[in-house]
């Protein structure tokens, strides 16, 4: 594994850039533990100071240091995105594989549920959840809710692959050799769908973090936990954009974009490495 990473690092520019970007994002979130200020306290530094040597990313109108706020925001947002991705992946995998493998009425009813989740508009549901949960609506809970709403899209993709796998010979031979459904799915089919799982993870994170920002902008999240959306929420509350406090919005935005580009490049380069077809294509040699 380390060998692969080393090779990727040495010979794959996209991987290098991606890894560097992710490293910066991770570093930022790790730095949160060293913040001199508690994340929720306001007026700990002079407000509205532009980026300078003392305050690298400037300070907010709430008297918070943008840099240190950003470290918390990155940590929470990444954790949020990963949690949603992880849980929804588990759901999508289980349901997709099972539905695709079993077929018949199990498949049809599972897919009916699945399609229902696809067509139901999420926003009113999330907002109503917010109203019911009130201040118990922590980011973790939000992550759980979003995960349980965000698996349908990918479950369908996985189901499609599982259906094609089912038709293959090795499934039949496994079946005849007396493997249980669970064993067949986990041992035989899972490896084939993992690439899809990886590639959908990124999209899922983009989706969940984007939706978190949307909810935050509308004020339907826990505004005290700093997240990227939370920072934008507070910046909005202080009309930072027209007040000229651009650094309050610019740095969180750059951080998000950086993270996503990093993830994307990593996914692309890993995919290149795993997928023999794309490997062949990028072989050098002028013809």
């Amino acid at each position, binding site marked *: 594994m380390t060998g692969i990473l080393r*090779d*990727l690092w*040495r*010979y*794959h520019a996209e991987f290098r850039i991606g890894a560097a970007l992710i490293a910066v994002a991770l570093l930022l979130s790790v730095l949160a533990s060293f913040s001199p200020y508690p994340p929720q306290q306001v007026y700990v530094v002079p407000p509205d100071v532009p980026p300078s040597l003392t305050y690298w990313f400037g300070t907010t109108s709430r008297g918070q240091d943008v840099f240190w706020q950003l470290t918390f925001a990155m940590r929470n947002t990444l954790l949020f995105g990963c949690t949603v991705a992880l849980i929804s992946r588990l759901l999508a995998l289980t349901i997709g594989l099972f539905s695709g493998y079993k077929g018949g009425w199990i498949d049809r009813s599972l897919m009916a549920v699945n399609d229902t989740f696809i067509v139901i508009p999420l926003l009113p549901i999330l907002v109503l959840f917010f109203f019911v949960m009130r201040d118990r609506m922590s980011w973790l809970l939000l992550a759980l809710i979003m995960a349980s709403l965000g698996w349908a899209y990918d479950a369908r993709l996985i189901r499609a692959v599982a259906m094609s796998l089912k038709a293959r010979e090795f499934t039949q031979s496994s079946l005849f050799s007396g493997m249980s459904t669970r064993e067949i799915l986990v041992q035989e089919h899972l490896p084939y769908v993992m690439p899809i799982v990886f590639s959908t993870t990124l999209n899922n994170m983009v989706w969940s973090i984007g939706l978190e920002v949307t909810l935050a902008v509308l004020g339907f999240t826990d505004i005290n936990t700093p997240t990227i959306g939370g920072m934008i929420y507070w910046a909005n509350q202080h009309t930072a954009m027209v007040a000229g406090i651009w650094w309050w919005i610019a740095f969180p935005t750059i951080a998000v974009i950086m993270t996503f580009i990093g993830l994307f490049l990593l996914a692309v380069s890993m995919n290149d*490495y795993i997928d023999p077809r794309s*490997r*062949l*294509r*990028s*072989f*050098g*040699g*002028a*013809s």
Partner: protein
Amino acid sequence: MTQAETMPGELPDDAQPILSVRDLQAHFRTDRFGVKRDVKAVDGVSFAVRRGEIYGLAGESSSGKTTLVRTIAGAVKPPLDVVGGRVDFAFLPGYGGLRRAPAAEVARIRWRHLSYIMQGSMNVLNPVRRLRSAFVDFAYPHIGESRKQFEQDVVAHLARLKLDPSVLAAYPHELSGGMRQRATIALATICRPDVILADEPTTALDVVVQKEVLAMISGIRREIGSSVVLVSHDLGVHAQVTDRLGIMYAGRLIEEAATVEIFRNPLHPYTRHLISSLPRIGDDVPRKGLEGAPPNLADPPPGCRFHPRCPLAMEICRHKVPATLETAPGHRIACFAVNRSEAA
């Protein structure tokens, strides 16, 4: 290394060949994650195909047969790269290969003069379109006539090949493997090309269908007068249809002769092994297997590439490459054990 070889074009009884290949070298070159590899898939191959003949190419898998036909067909894309040599067609003189010819010239001769039946008929047809559209896309631009006329030609061509015109309305996945292969051959021959490159056209077909397909190829040669380069790992196939046969091993042509001659009098130890391992009725002596495996072409053994497995290997085989010499009229061979004079 190869200067001493005789060129097939110089054969006295031969007319100008329709296709001649000289010292062709095609390598898979990779430079990825620090690992530079240079797989010499085709390494100095020369042969010629006469008008109207069926020329067979045989050898184990990964002996370079497919790469050779691909290179001749001009299907050269990275990582495959032509390192040296020429490919000359009678209808495309002076360029030394499709990749050196102007695009307009190539477009002119493709399908009209040179057509290609790719390996694996399962995947060569566009899965989301009906076969008719393949005929239109591939051949219509080459035939200067009305669309209606063209349709009639296609139907007539199919009828000649004993194919029902209804296949035109079918999607590839709706046809059986044999039908699909025959349709592919029909597609490749609709323009009555001078040369047909057919790569493993019978592989993965059952014996009955195989026979039909081979009969079809012979029929086409007879009716249209095309030359055919037929690649197959199955010597039985060659025995049935080819006129002459080249044996390839590890990227090189090691023996070439009339098919009958090869079967009757194989000279190269590898060819002999191939022939002797063919099953014969009433023969229940266990076949003697060949030791070892085909060499890694990224790092081939020096000298004769067959020497690590060769029962007749001599010292010279380990560092010198044997030239391809004509030992008998029309029988060329690259082996020190056979061409003793060279080894001396």
